[in-house]
């Protein structure tokens, strides 16, 4: 599967940009994407958390991903 990722905060630093095309061969779900990301970018393992937002909402590992979805990497938030 091939999608466009958006990334903020330290996730942007890790993948090397705000936007990035990303391919993986595993499951077309949030869980599958996470697994592939951790393999490609081992620095994610060191984060306190990594959540994935699909279409502007937090998604569970089981959530399916399609190419039209807006997929965003959400490292630990620190607003306020």
């Amino acid at each position, binding site marked *: 599967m091939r999608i466009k990722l*958006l990334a903020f905060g330290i996730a942007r630093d890790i993948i090397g940009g705000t936007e990035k095309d990303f391919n993986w061969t595993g499951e077309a779900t949030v869980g599958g994407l996470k697994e592939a990301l951790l393999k490609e970018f081992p620095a994610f393992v060191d984060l306190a958390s990594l959540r994935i*937002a699909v279409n*502007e*909402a937090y998604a569970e590992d089981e959530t399916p991903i399609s190419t039209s979805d807006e997929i*965003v990497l959400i*490292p630990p*938030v620190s*607003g306020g």
Partner: protein
Amino acid sequence: MKMEKEFKILAHPLQLEEIYQHTKSPSAGAVDIFVGTVRNQTKGKTVVRLEFESYKPMAIKEIELIAEEAGRRWPIEKIVVHHRVGTLQIGEIAVIIAVSTPHRRASFEACKYVIDTLKETVPIWKKEIFEDGEVWVAAHP
């Protein structure tokens, strides 16, 4: 009675008086306002400035979810949340949360709930800039 709401992510200085004017209500006897500011140090280390960024559309939606839950728990008349993004100097305001309720206890509880939850769920990120480096706050355990 419907709760009135106003949520903004802004790149310019936040306006306390304006926020108060949008939160007060003739049927509310209490307004609690939390103002989060940029401290000059963190864990004893001098901070030079902060940089905030947000995933804005989702940040607004997540603040909306927090406010709705707060509105289920407390009798909120009006709630306003403004969060700043961009570069902030020491002493500048990062966030203002204002809540009006009929009586005071609910205003404190609701305001505290909103800032506590905002810090856990709203996609906003803060980088602390020191004299000798920088760090994304809370990124690592």
